[in-house]
């Protein structure tokens, strides 16, 4: 079905280093590619339950996110359908800690769960760097992840994706990746570490 509605959803918090991966990949997608009307690229941030309207409208969803698979940092992983919710654990998309599983359950309860679900994930290297951008290794995975998304769109969904002729704003210019990372205050001015107890679990 060529006109099924597809949502490409980047999630995560750009303020916590590699956590911003999903949003940054979708930012690149939107900046460089012309997408047909039935494909929507969305900066989901950490909006959890508030993303429900967009998920309900979609027949298929491609999520891009930083996920802890316990793999080597910067490993990319592609998952589909039932494999996805198990990975997107309870705290991941955390509007009031309504986990993604709960969002999916809600979609099923209402009879409008997407029929196809993909996840393009990266194993983050660093999260406890508040105000930081993507680490070098993770930044290097933006292009490959983007290529995976484009490949899914074209081969799996038969979408024609063209190069954009004019750059389009996606995230607000102030927090576009280049500006966000370039204008970062110095470490002595702005503490960059997180709470040891909260972060202890992932290290």
């Amino acid at each position: 079905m060529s006109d099924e509605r597809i949502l490409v959803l980047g999630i995560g918090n750009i303020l916590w280093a590699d956590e911003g991966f999903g949003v940054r990949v979708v930012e690149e997608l939107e900046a460089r590619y012309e997408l047909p009307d039935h494909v929507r690229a969305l900066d989901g941030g950490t909006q959890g339950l508030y993303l429900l309207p967009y998920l309900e409208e979609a027949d298929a969803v491609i999520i891009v996110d930083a996920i802890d698979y316990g793999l080597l940092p910067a490993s990319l992983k592609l998952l589909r359908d039932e494999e996805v919710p198990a990975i997107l654990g309870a705290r991941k998309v955390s509007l009031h800690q309504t986990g993604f599983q709960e969002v999916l359950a809600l979609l099923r309860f209402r009879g409008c769960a997407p029929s196809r679900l993909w996840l393009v994930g990266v194993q983050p290297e660093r999260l406890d760097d508040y105000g930081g951008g993507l680490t070098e290794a993770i930044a290097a995975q933006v292009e490959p992840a983007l290529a995976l998304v484009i490949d899914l769109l074209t081969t799996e969904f038969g979408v024609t994706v063209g190069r954009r002729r004019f750059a389009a704003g996606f995230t607000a210019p102030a927090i576009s990746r280049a500006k966000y990372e370039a204008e970062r205050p110095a470490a002595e001015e702005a503490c960059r570490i997180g709470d040891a107890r909260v972060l202890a679990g992932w290290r």
Partner: protein
Amino acid sequence: MTLQTPNGFSLDTSGKRIVVDPVTRIEGHMRCEVNVDSNNVIRNAVSTGTMWRGLEVILKGRDPRDAWAFVERICGVCTGCHALASVRAVEDALDIKIPYNAHLIREIMAKVLQWHDHVVHFYHLHALDWVNPVNALKADPKATSQLQQMVGPDHPMSSPGYFRDIQNRLKKFVESGQLGLFKNGYWDNPAYKLPPEADLMAVAHYLEALDFQKEIVKVHTIFGGKNPHPNYMVGGVPCAINMDGNMAAGAPLNMERLNFVHQRLTEAYAFSKNVYVPDVIAIASFYKDWLYGGGLSATNVMDYGDYELVPGDKKTDQLPGGVILNGNWDEVLPIDPRDPEQVQEFVAHSWYSYGDETRGLHPWDGVTEPKFQLGPKTVGTRTDIRELDEAAKYSWIKAPRWRGHAVEVGPLARYILAWGHNVTFVKDQINDAVGRFNTLAGTSLTPKQALPSTIGRTLARALEAHYCAKMMLDDFERLIGNIKAGDSSTANVEKWDPATWPKEAKGVGTVAAPRGGNAHWIKIRDGRIENYQCVVPTTWNGGPRDPQGNIGAFEASLMNTPMERPEEPVEILRTLHSFDPCLACSTHVIAPGGEEMARVTVR
């Protein structure tokens, strides 16, 4: 051991300690510890924000006109109210007056956010503290229909067939083993008091609320260019008006779009009037014997005031601010966020350092220097704390005070203040709601008896949502009138260029955010941010003790509440959720298949 706090609470730590970590169905990360006596009554409460959030510090040196885009990312829910506080702070610092259209559009966006947030909070995050979805399976759809027609006679979806359908869907869902949606429930706990019919009615409205949240957020897309992260702008709003324009994407605001907005606002008004408010009153009436949880709201409440009729004139606030102390509803003290003696933050019990920990700092002079240090009575280790030592530092939240007083903020605080200010619409709403509650419950409570409670907090939120729906319809009429009168201006860019700014400037922006008074303080030097401090509502409510030992709103609200079963903290969650806690989200990675459940430990 008993400890008397200056603000009138008697803390006894001798009984069993119960630890709830994390507190679920909130935004961000929070832990709560209480001591209960031999009758399982809470005699000591400790509220801890477990997440470092130094948003302020990463803004240093950045362009003040960009700050809104960063603060919009503080958390997953209150995006718009931080962005609005931020642009207001910059406009205050640089003395920028925004056009009337921009004022009205911002007002509509703020009230849509308020309405939306309150509805989502009640049906998705708080209802399960009162409503038992499993019990709804036992309901008689006919009796449910009768209940619906009694409490909300103007709501069209009320037939027995409608409720039977909902019940069948719920049944199928539960039988398929997907109760995960309603997980973490203590469904056989006697703390649940609703008859099955009320449970079924609430489940039906939970589903209807989902449909509503979908529609109403489109208003943000229209005015803010996009959602879930709408655009804001220092000096106005980033949307042009051209009433004859077409509907092409990115085109200016036209009549067709405005009509669409009007329709959404009208539907919102009907929903809060016919469904949300009646639901809260009906549910509350079954909990008439559960008037716990008032805490500080019985004595001290605060808000900065918001919803000016005349832009820039705080005297025209439709929800006027101020402070009420000692439960004296007849006297509202004025609040000035600029006065260094009024709003101050303390860190004696917070994981920050000021050098002198007895001091309070006004936000313009605020310091955010982390110092993670545990007290000697802590049980456990730095990375696995089993019991906190609240005599020492115990939270990542600072303790803000107004002239040294601990106060509660939020819709209930605003409603008590509006009562004190004699705001007619609000007084009528409160009298009507308490009257309907009394009729259903067979009680004769006064507003002053009913409001300072967990139920009162939840009721005030519903009433405020409806007041916002009414006000945004008024704003809409004014917007149309102003545009028709020939004004299409939406931004004032006279001072867009930093070259026009003074070398140094400081300002403050306040917003009546869903969870309470939200304020951002900014200092600008040479066109860049020199200091930025946010004091958000949950800082006021969820903050720890101050150097004098006064406890904050969360801790106070839990005091003296009896628990049915200490190992099932329904009562703790119910009261904490009534504040709609928002502890600013941040990172949250979890291992594959990992499922974070609330851990409850009883010692």
